[in-house]
């Protein structure tokens, strides 16, 4: 575990993705949303920075549909590109 955290720190640049690159069924933690209005809306939905979400489906060239708690949320593709996430390993939460 300690080794992996160290690994995360070492390769921080590489391991930070944006939401549009998350595959179906994968989970991630939200690090930041680069759009003020979207950040507030997402926060109200329960999708705040630090929240763990999973990808329900990806519509080709269209929105990414994520699940945050019990809530499904559709995120437009270009907004998803401005949401920084950290992919979570299976079982990590």
């Amino acid at each position, binding site marked *: 575990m300690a080794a992996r955290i160290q690994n995360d720190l070492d390769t921080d640049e590489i391991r930070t993705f944006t939401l549009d690159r998350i595959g179906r069924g994968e989970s991630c933690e939200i690090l930041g949303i680069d759009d003020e209005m979207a950040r507030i809306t997402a926060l109200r939905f329960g999708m705040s920075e630090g929240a763990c979400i999973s990808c329900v489906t990806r519509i080709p060239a269209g929105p990414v549909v994520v699940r945050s*708690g019990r809530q499904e949320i559709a995120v437009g593709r*270009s907004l998803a590109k401005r949401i920084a996430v950290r992919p979570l390993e299976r079982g990590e939460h």
Partner: protein
Amino acid sequence: MSGSPHCHVPASGALREGVTTVVLAGNPNVGKSVVFNALTGNYVDVSNFPGTTVELTRGSQGGHDVVDTPGVYGVSSFNDEERVARDVILEADVVVNVVDAVHLERDLFLTLQLIDMGKPTVVALNMIDEARASGVAVDTDLLSDLLGVPVIETVAVRNQGIDELRAAIEHSRVGHGDPELDSSLIEMASRVGCRAEALLVLEADPAVAERHGIEPADSSSRDVIYLRRRDRVNDVVGHTVSHTTQGARFSTRLSAAMMAPLTGVPLLLLMLALMYKVFGEWVAGGVVGFLEQQLFAESIVPAVERAVSSVFAEGSAIFTILAGDFGVLTMVPTYLFGVILPLVSSFYFLLALLEDSGYLPRIAALTDRALSSIGLNGRAIIPLILGLGCVTMGTLTTRILGSKRERFIATALMAIAVPCSAQIAVIAALMAGVGPKYAAIYFGALIVIFVGVGTALGRLVPGTSTDLLIDLPNLRLPRLDNVLRKTFMKSYHFMKEVTVFFLLGALAISVLDITGVLVGVQELAVPLTVGWLGLPAEAATAFVMGLVRRDFGAAGFFTMNLSAAQLLVAMVTITLFVPCVASVMVIWKERGMGYVVGLFASSIGIAFLAGGLLARVLGVV
């Protein structure tokens, strides 16, 4: 019930002195209107316009005034719904906060904000049956303790828990607010007069700050408050909600299938085909065919003509006005009750099914990609579909769009290229006899123009469009009683408005006819109608009628003997022609006079250009 100090809100002014105002607040799609109806019974004062989310519904219950508010995710000033809800909530003596038991992570954000505002609150934990069915267990007593306000489990659609909710209104309490906010709230409240407004000022609400002549707090102050509130919500949910099962239910799979293009597009097409079947064939063909061609044309109209002619001589001015071609006793009821009522009510029925099932936001997700190519995002599908019902309603609903640019584009597209249900009704009735080929060309031409106008606007209109970010409500089977109530309310309001326009329009056209002005207009317009479009000279009458209402305009072609190709040219032209007076007034209010002028010029230009080109392609001219 504890009284709360009133905030001095200039906006609504409908507050009655000495009467407790109970305000319903909640997120969209939590069953707030159903709770409202269950609480207040039948006697309600409904908004003057159907389908809009911004108008308010008022009723009374146990001597209190009850006000329903538009669904919002929080109290602030980000859009019109929020501004309306904000001012009504500020005036409230008691807030009944309706929350969806399935989505407490989302809904309790508003709840805690209401509690932080210091409003005496009761929480209606609605759809508790659905939560249980999907494996969500809520510890209601603990939730009530943590929030510090009464929490009542309800299933509003079944009237369960409503009596308890009614009783709890008398025991509403100010809940446990954010303790860290206390000192700054007390200080701000001493400047603005009440805690609720103080909170909004601290949350950087520009409108509330301005009312008190205070510089609004900057957005970082709001971010701090919001983030802490989010943490509190997560904490409350963590303590009170447990998931017993998380299996992939049928609705979860259906939801995914609705949004994946491979299955979603066929599903959408299937739904449109079904709508066409119900709308175009059963209602327009069957029901309208019977009512308009048999009941009215063969029985009612001749009877009215006989009755009127027994008093006023046939050919006299009064006879023409009452029972002539545009008679207020003949043509007006024929179209109102024989054509428009059956089609509009069936449209609202289908729309209510779509709304209540939760399919609409999924269509928004599916069509996001396509709509973003014309400068919109998936959300715009909602006003566009509503525009198919009534452009006026669609235009008002453009308020949900995130930017001025999107509202500009969506309004123009609806006004130009989206026929409204009343117009479709008349067109469907007219074209029922000419075969599917012409119907296909009609819709094809509209789609080409829709995409063309959309693409041009997407390139030309300055600004940036916002991105899609919407929550998807659970899919559920719509409840027939709820669907029927919505259908009835919306159809009733629609018909009430249409009737006035049809009566005045028919009267005006008859007067123009009697005074000979109509013939003058027809002669003037000959180069356009006969020369360019290949239609008879009387077509000018229909366009004059079209200035009043689009469906009225289309109806003007009924009495002309047109060939199938001429009919198609006429229908395409009248569809693209200017929007009706009612929607022009709304567009004027929403977008300004300059916009209306531009819209008139472009819709008339596009209508005659497309009509003339089509006439040449079809060999009419």
